[in-house]
Structures are given as structure tokens and as C-alpha cells.
């Protein structure tokens, strides 16, 4: 008890020093707790976002891996590269992979194209300039999908069905979903029939293939005010079944099913990805050529700014903790030097050295505990204000970088994967909540700093000998 009593007497006898120490701890604890609150808010937001979006893995041919493997051979004409059968994803195999316990739903996309024919005209937002050759791009873009609702553009909401029914595994082969602009241009409604010309690809004229409009959807992708080839016009995107897409191409489905360009698997949990990868490999899908990647683009869009804010907060927590430990260690070391005489007196009386350190620790821990209590309301306000400011800056930076990206639709024309327009706005509000766990964490941090700051310079106390301090040594 004497140790505690002396600590109390010391703290009350030097109120200025006590206030300084408490104030320093208050600053450290407030910053640490603020960082902790921002991190907690970010974690909660990330968990909510994950729940909202789910975990979706995509599989497609990795062209670079195919090139490195040497399986992507020349076609002999010197004009390009041929994707042979062993580099083709087949729908039958993907259907089998869809039965994996790790999967809750899946779809895939078969790329195709169609010519206007019969009564179907292409949608044009702007007429081509006089004399322009439009023959190279005047096509409909046709995607055969197993489950339209599971495709990224529909899943994320950048395309929405406004009439009819989505395409599913049981949908008839001749059903199409047409974009609202194409439907209006041709006076189409759900249940109407229309004709799309096939593209044999061998220079021969295509055959008209009849389809039934099963649904009309609207896309957020806007038409350009100047002329673009029809295939780059978002209004000319048509969805049908994989078999329907096969009816328009020269190479229809084989015994192994249609050639798939991209498959998406909705997982039970992001951690189920490894299980799905193992199942894919077991089915003979080379993980190098057909990698499964967690499609976390939407997750990133949602949580990117708040995660970066949390990263800054985490860095702040560490920097402040380490700086606090260093500063307090120096202060305690200085204090021990100043109190050398006092320590010598106590040692001469027979006080145990660990108790001398204990008295210091009690003094500093008492300051720390008062500071922790005071930092609770302060850090809540600081986390809300500073975290909100940081997050707003990150959201703005995120929007700026997103605005600098390729425009929707053009990436697809260049051969890239389909890029759904970001549906989810980034999280731009911090839900700062103070929980007992947060207070416990900062209390532990404060006491940890107090212990470290006492024990680090404490070796000096253990080396003290009262005679050296209290006598002149003759």
C-alpha cells in the first residue's frame, strides 16, 4: 500500500507535472481511440458491404498465360492468333462446376453478333457522316447468357429489366432481351417476334433467325452524341440464351456445349473461393489458363474510400502509439534522473527496487486512466469530424479517378471484359460507435504505453545503489 500512497502523494504534491502527464496521455489516447473508432466503423461498413454485394468469382481465359504457355498458336496467315479447342471454356464443364457446394448461383456468357435483317433495324443515336463505310460495325451485339440476372450488369443494377422475364436456364432458345432504345426504334414489345440475321463468318450471307422478345431492359450506358459504329452503341446490346447465341454463329454448340467467354459464380462466402478453385482443377480446368478471381470491383467501389481512411487511421494509431511510447519513455527517464535522490533515500530505507518501479508505474497508470476516461467523449467527436473529413477527401479522389477511366461500352469494343457501370456509390458516411471493446482497446493501449514507458528506462532504477546517490564516496 505504501507504494500506492507514495504515488498519490507524489501526484498531488506536483500538480503541474501530473497535469502535464495526464494531458500528454489525453492527446495520445484521444488519437489512438479516434483511430480505433474509424477502423471499427470501416470494418462494420466493409462487413455490411460484403453482405450487400456478396462474393462473386469470375473465370475467363487469361490471354497472357495462354501466350506464355505457347498454346496460343498462329493461324498460319500471319494476321493473328487462334484460340484452339484446349483454350476454350465449354458450357458443359462450367455447368458441372456450378454444382460445387461452394456455389450458390452461376451464369456464363457466350459472345455472338447478329445482322439487322427482316423487320429489325439497328438503333442509331447519330447518323453516320455522308459517304462513311458502316459495313464493318453495323451489327447487333448478342450475348448468350445462362442466367441474365446473375450477369454483372444486371446484378449490379446498371441494367434493369423493365418488362418481361429474365433469361434463365429453362428459357427457350429463341428468347431475346432487347434494350429499350432498340425496342422503341423498332416498335417491339414483350411477346413480339423479330428476325436477326446470322453471321456465318465465312463471307457467305447470313440466314434470318426468328426470336421472340421475352423482355425489355434499360441500360444506364448512355448513347454518344456523335456517330459510333452500331456495335459500340449500348442500345444494340441483345441478350439471349447460349443456344440462341449459337444459332447466330457459324460455330454452334458442340457435344461439349457452347464456347463461353466468361463465367461468373456466386459463392457462399469469399473464403469459398479456394474450394471452387480446387473443384475447377479437379474438373481439368487449368488454373493458370482459366484463373478464378474474386470479383471485388463493386466491393472496392463501395469500401475503397472508407478502407483507405481506415488505413490512415491505423497508421495514425501506430505512429501515435510509438511516438507516445518514445516521448513518455523520455519523460520517465528524465523523471527518474530528477528523482534519483528520492530513489536513493527510499533504497537506503530498504525499499525494494521493483516497488520503486511500481510507484512510477502507478503514477503514470493513474494519469493514463484519467486520460482514457477524458478521451472517450473527445475521441468520439474527433473520429466523427476528422474521419468524416478524411473520408470525404477519399470519396472525392475516388470519383476523380473513376471519371478518368474509359467510358462505358468502349472497353468492350476494344476486346475487354464487360464493365458494369458502378452501381453502388462509395460509402461516404462514418457510422462512429463507441463500444466497450473500443474503450477496452484504448485502455489496454494506454496502460501498455504506461508500462512500456516505465519499464524501458526502468533498468536505471535496478542499477541504482543508495551509497552512490546519498554519499560523496570518500
Amino acid at each position, binding site marked *: *500500500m*505504501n507504494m500506492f*500512497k*507514495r504515488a498519490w*502523494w*507524489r501526484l498531488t*504534491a*506536483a500538480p503541474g507535472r501530473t497535469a502535464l502527464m495526464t494531458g500528454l496521455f489525453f492527446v495520445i489516447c484521444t488519437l489512438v481511440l479516434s483511430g480505433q473508432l474509424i477502423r471499427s466503423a470501416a470494418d462494420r461498413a466493409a462487413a455490411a458491404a460484403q453482405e450487400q454485394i456478396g462474393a462473386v468469382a469470375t473465370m475467363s481465359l487469361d490471354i497472357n498465360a495462354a501466350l506464355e504457355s505457347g498454346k496460343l498458336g498462329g493461324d498460319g496467315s500471319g494476321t493473328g492468333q487462334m484460340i484452339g479447342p484446349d483454350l476454350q471454356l465449354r458450357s458443359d464443364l462450367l455447368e458441372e462446376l456450378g454444382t460445387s457446394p461452394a456455389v450458390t448461383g452461376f451464369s456464363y456468357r457466350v459472345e455472338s453478333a447478329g445482322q439487322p435483317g427482316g423487320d429489325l433495324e439497328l438503333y442509331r443515336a447519330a447518323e453516320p457522316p455522308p459517304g462513311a463505310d458502316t459495313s464493318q460495325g453495323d451489327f447487333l451485339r448478342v450475348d448468350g447468357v445462362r442466367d441474365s440476372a446473375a450477369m454483372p450488369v444486371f446484378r449490379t443494377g446498371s441494367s434493369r429489366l423493365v418488362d418481361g422475364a429474365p433469361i434463365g436456364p429453362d428459357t427457350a432458345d429463341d428468347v431475346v432481351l432487347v434494350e429499350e432504345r432498340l425496342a422503341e426504334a423498332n416498335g417491339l414489345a414483350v411477346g413480339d417476334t423479330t428476325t436477326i440475321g446470322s453471321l456465318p463468318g465465312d463471307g457467305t450471307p447470313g440466314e434470318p433467325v426468328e426470336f421472340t422478345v421475352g423482355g425489355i431492359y434499360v441500360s444506364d450506358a448512355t448513347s454518344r452524341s456523335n456517330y459510333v459504329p452500331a456495335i459500340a452503341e449500348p442500345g444494340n446490346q441483345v441478350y439471349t440464351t447460349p443456344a440462341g447465341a449459337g444459332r447466330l454463329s457459324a460455330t454452334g454448340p458442340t457435344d461439349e456445349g457452347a464456347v463461353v467467354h466468361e463465367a461468373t459464380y456466386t459463392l457462399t462466402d469469399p473464403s469459398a473461393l479456394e474450394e471452387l478453385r480446387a473443384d475447377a482443377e479437379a474438373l481439368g480446368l487449368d488454373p493458370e489458363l482459366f484463373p478464378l478471381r474474386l470479383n471485388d470491383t463493386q466491393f472496392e467501389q463501395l469500401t475503397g474510400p472508407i478502407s483507405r481512411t481506415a488505413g490512415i487511421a491505423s497508421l495514425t494509431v501506430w505512429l501515435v502509439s510509438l511516438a507516445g511510447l518514445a516521448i513518455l519513455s523520455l519523460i520517465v527517464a528524465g523523471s527518474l534522473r530528477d528523482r534519483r*535522490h*528520492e530513489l*536513493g*533515500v*527510499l*533504497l*537506503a*530505507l*530498504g*525499499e*525494494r527496487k521493483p516497488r520503486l518501479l511500481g510507484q512510477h508505474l502507478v503514477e503514470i497508470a493513474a494519469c493514463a486512466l484519467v486520460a482514457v476516461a477524458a478521451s472517450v467523449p473527445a475521441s468520439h467527436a474527433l473520429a466523427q469530424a476528422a474521419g468524416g473529413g478524411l473520408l470525404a477527401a477519399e470519396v472525392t479522389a475516388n470519383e476523380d479517378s473513376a471519371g478518368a477511366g474509359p467510358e462505358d461500352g468502349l472497353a468492350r469494343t476494344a476486346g475487354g471484359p464487360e464493365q458494369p457501370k458502378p452501381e453502388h456509390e462509395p460509402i461516404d458516411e462514418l457510422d462512429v460507435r463507441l463500444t466497450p471493446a473500443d474503450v477496452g482497446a484504448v485502455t489496454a493501449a494506454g496502460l501498455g504505453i504506461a508500462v512500456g514507458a516505465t519499464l524501458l528506462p526502468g533498468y536505471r532504477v535496478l542499477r541504482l*545503489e*543508495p*551509497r552512490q546517490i*546519498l*554519499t*560523496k*564516496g*570518500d
Partner: protein
Amino acid sequence: MTTTTTITTPATTDDQPPPSTAPLLELVGVGKTYPAPGRARGRAVLKEVSHGFEAGRMSAIVGPSGSGKTTLLSLAGGLDEPTTGTVRFRGQDLAALGLAPYRRRHAATVFQSANLLTYLNPVQNVTSAMEITGSRRRRRRQHAHDLLDQLGIAPEDRGRSVLQLSGGQQQRVAIARALACDVDVLLADEPTGNLDEATASDIIAILRGLAHDGGKCVVVVTHSREVADASDEVLRLRRGRLART
């Protein structure tokens, strides 16, 4: 039941020490050498010092500056260890007893500067010492007041910071602190060095009373003739060797 130490302040020195008994504190062939730059063997401050200090007697150690008086007192008080030889308390080697336990239970040192804890008042200084030494007194605070009263510290001064006390008052508080621990050996290093003549006389009387009436073994290092004259034996240190005068 609490015990109290009775301190008398004799005006004369007609009180007699008890008859010689077995030494309470004994130095046997004690030597102390400090490291010294340029000297491989170091600087020998004490050489083969042997002497026994008895309970109930006041001993004075005199000698020129640098003769090793403070070093001898440090070894006797358990503040330091000898390089050679042994220091024994009731026949037991301090190295085996442990210096810190020896200081806690058996020996107290009063320094030339009082060496009080400056953030405490006189009462707190005394009670802190009692708590450190594990004094079993129940009413420590009352005992501290009793001791301070006997040593002439006025009640109004006992709650003040020790920094506000005079040198003589501080020295009295230091003695009260030493007495509070019920130690057997009281060592004092130049206890009157900073004091005026009247206060010094009071302190000398107190120390003598502690030896003769309190049964303590009192050892005082001093330059003061008055202190030497008041002591039961005077030992002279010269070039690290002890001789009775």
C-alpha cells in the same frame, strides 16, 4: 500494544554507558577498494579494518577528509559491500542476511543532508519509512507524531512541506524517521555538520540518549569535537586504517 522509544536530552554527560558486551555490529578485516583510472588495483579506501560496535554505546569515527569515514559508515549501514572481509550483525554476515533486508529491519542511516522525501511532510516521511520497514505498529501516524513531538518538531510544522523546515528541523525529522523503524543500529554521517551550535548540541544529546537510554548502537562519523567528546569511544581513521584514540 505499541512500544515507544524514550529519548532523553541530558544536559550533562554524567550518564554512563552499559558495561561492555558482545558487539552487535562487527567489522572483520574489512577492506574497500574503488576502481581508479590508471590504477590496475584501484584505490584502496579501507584496509583491514576490524572493530566491534556494541549496543547501548555511542561511537564516533573521526579522521581527515578522504580517510574513508563515509565508506566505513556505508559498509556498516548496509549501503555498500566490502571488497574484502565481512560485516556482521549479531554474528551474521550481511552478505548472507542481504543488504536491503538489513537496512529495512536493523539499521538506519542519518545523513549530513537530511535526505528527506521532499514531496512529503514530516509525518508522511516518518510513516512512509515505517511502512517500508514493515513496522508492526498499529497506530503509525500517532507514533510518528509522538516521535516528532519528542524531537521537538512543533505540531504546526508537521503538516508542512519538509522544504519549509530549517536544517535543524529537517535533521530532527530524519532522526525521527530512523527511530520510527525500531532499528538496532543507528548510523549518522556528520549529523551536525550543517547545524548551528545550539541545534547541534540538541542533536548530540538525542543521539547519546538513544544509545544510553534506548539501547541503540549509535555510530557517528564526525569532524566535530563536541560529538567526539560526547561519544563513549572515539575511533580515528587514517589512510584507511582504524585506530582507537
